[in-house]
C-alpha cells in the first residue's frame, strides 16, 4: 500500500507558480480559491528560497481533530479527504492546520465562509470516482485513473515531488548524493523520518 506524500525541493523551486495554475485548472477550483501556493522567503536576497505548499496530508491531521462535524477521512493511501456536503464552514480546520491549506469561498450576504476546499492529492472525495458530483465538488480524481497529482507531474524543475513516500524519499536521496554533500546524507536515515509513518 502506498503512503502518499508531497515533498518540495527548495533548491529547485523557481517560483514559476505553474503548480498553482495547473491545480486550479485541473480541478476547476472556485473563483478566489487556490489549493496550492508558492511562498518565497527572503525575496530578492542572495538566500532566496521558494516552496510550493498545499495540504500535506498529515498523519495525525489537526483539521480532522477539530472539525465539529467530523467530515475528514484518510484513505488507504494516506490522503486526507473531506466530505463537503456536511461542512458547515466554521473555519476551525484552517485555524488548526499547520500549513494554511483549507480555503473558503465567500458565501451569503455577510461574506460568511462557504464549504471548505483544499488539496485532495488529486484524489477527489467520498462520491463515486470521477462521477459528475465528485468532479463538481472536488475536481478530477487522478488517483482513481492511476495518475499522480498534476502539480508535481508537470513541475518543470521537478522541485515538487508527489507519490509513494518511499519512492519520493529515494529520489530525494539521490539528489543529496548528487549535490556532493556528505553532510546531506547524514540524518536521512537516522535523524529524519521525512515522509511520515512507519520508520523512525
Amino acid at each position, binding site marked *: 500500500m502506498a503512503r502518499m506524500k508531497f515533498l518540495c525541493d*527548495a533548491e529547485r523551486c523557481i517560483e514559476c*507558480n505553474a503548480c498553482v495554475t495547473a491545480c486550479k485548472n485541473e480541478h476547476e477550483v472556485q473563483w478566489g480559491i487556490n489549493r496550492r501556493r508558492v511562498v518565497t522567503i527572503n525575496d530578492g536576497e542572495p538566500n532566496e528560497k521558494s516552496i510550493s505548499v498545499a495540504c500535506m496530508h498529515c498523519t495525525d491531521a489537526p483539521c480532522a481533530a477539530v472539525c465539529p462535524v467530523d467530515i475528514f477521512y484518510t484513505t488507504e493511501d494516506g490522503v486526507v479527504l473531506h466530505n463537503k456536503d456536511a461542512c458547515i464552514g466554521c473555519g476551525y480546520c484552517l485555524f488548526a492546520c499547520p*500549513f494554511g491549506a483549507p480555503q473558503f469561498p465567500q458565501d451569503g450576504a455577510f461574506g460568511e465562509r462557504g464549504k471548505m476546499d483544499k488539496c485532495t492529492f488529486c484524489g477527489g472525495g467520498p462520491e463515486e470516482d470521477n462521477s459528475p458530483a465528485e468532479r463538481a465538488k472536488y475536481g478530477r480524481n487522478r488517483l482513481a485513473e492511476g495518475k499522480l497529482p498534476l502539480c508535481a507531474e508537470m513541475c518543470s524543475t521537478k522541485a515538487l515531488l508527489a507519490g509513494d513516500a518511499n519512492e519520493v524519499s529515494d529520489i530525494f536521496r539521490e539528489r543529496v548524493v548528487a549535490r556532493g554533500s556528505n553532510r546531506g546524507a547524514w540524518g536521512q536515515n537516522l535523524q529524519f523520518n521525512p*515522509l511520515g509513518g512507519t520508520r523512525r
Partner: protein
Amino acid sequence: MIAISRGSAALAWLIRLAAIAMALSMLPSMAVAATDPAKPPGDPVANYWREVRQGVPGLSQVDGAESGVLINAAGQQWREQRNGPLKRYGAMILLAMLGIIVLFYLVRGPMRLSAPPTGRKIQRFTPFERFVHWGTAITFILMGLTGLAVLFGRSVLGPLIGSGGLGGLLGLGKLVHNYLGPVFLAFTILLILVFLRDNVWAKCDAQWIARAGGMFSSGDHIPSGRFNFGEKAWFWLGVTFLGLFVAGTGLLLDFPALIDRTRELMQNLVLLHAIGAVLLLAMSLGHIYMATLGVEGAMESMKTGEVDETWAKEHHELWYEETKAGRSSHM
C-alpha cells in the same frame, strides 16, 4: 494526562513533519544546524528556517489572508487546547453545576411560602420588562444549545447521528448561532439598561450575604429590595460581565470576511468565547433553577408580571413596603 502527553508527542511529530517536508531540500546546510542547535547565528539557511517555523511571512503571488505564512505555528497548540482542557473542563464545570443543583433540590427542596397567599396581587414586572427578559432568555437558550452542539456535538451526538447528521444539525445550528448572536447582544444591552437601577448595592445586601440568602434555612426571610443579592450577582457577573463578553467576542467571530483577521486572533477569540460561554451557562443554570423549581411563585412573576403580596413580603420585603407606600418607581 494521557491526552496531554499524546498531544505533545503529536506536536513534536508535527513540527518535525513540517520541518522535514519543507526544509529537507536544504539538508546539506541544515545538517549542521540540526546537530548543533547552539550554532552561532548567521547561517542564513538556519535563520531562514527558524523564521519559517515561527510564522514570519514570505511573499506569495496567491492572494489571501496570511498566504505568505508557511507555518501556522499556533495551530497545533490551539487544537490541543480546544480538544483537551476546553472540552474537558467545560464539560466538568457544566456537569458539576447540574449535580450541585440536583443535590440542592434533593436536600433543600423548593422554598415555599410560609404564610398562606393573600390572593391580592401586586405588579412586579411591566410588560416591557417581561418582553426584554424573555427575548434575552429565548435567544440565550438557543445560543447556548447551538454553541454546546459545536463544542460537544461531535463527541456526544456524533456516535448516534454520524457526520452527515451532525452536518445537518450544525449547519442549521451555525446559522441560528451566527444570526441570533447580534440579537442576543441587543437584548442583553436592553436588559442591563432596564434592570440597572434595581441592581445597585443596598445595605440589606450585607445581611443577605451573611445569611447566605436564607438558602439553607427554611422560613428565614431576609429583607431585600426589588432584587436580592443573589439576583444582583447574577445581574453583574452573569448578564452584564459574561453576557457582554461572550456576545462581544461572538460578534468579532461572526463576520470573518469584513475585517482581515489573523488565524491567531480567531483562535484566541474562539477559546475566550467558549470559556466565557461555559461559565455563563453554568451560572444561568442556577438562575433557571431558582426561577422554576427552586422558589415557589418566582416563575409566575415573570410569566404574568404579578406576584402575591405574601410572596412579595417574604422574598422582597423592602420592595414590598416601598410599593405599598407608593414609592416604587415601577408601578
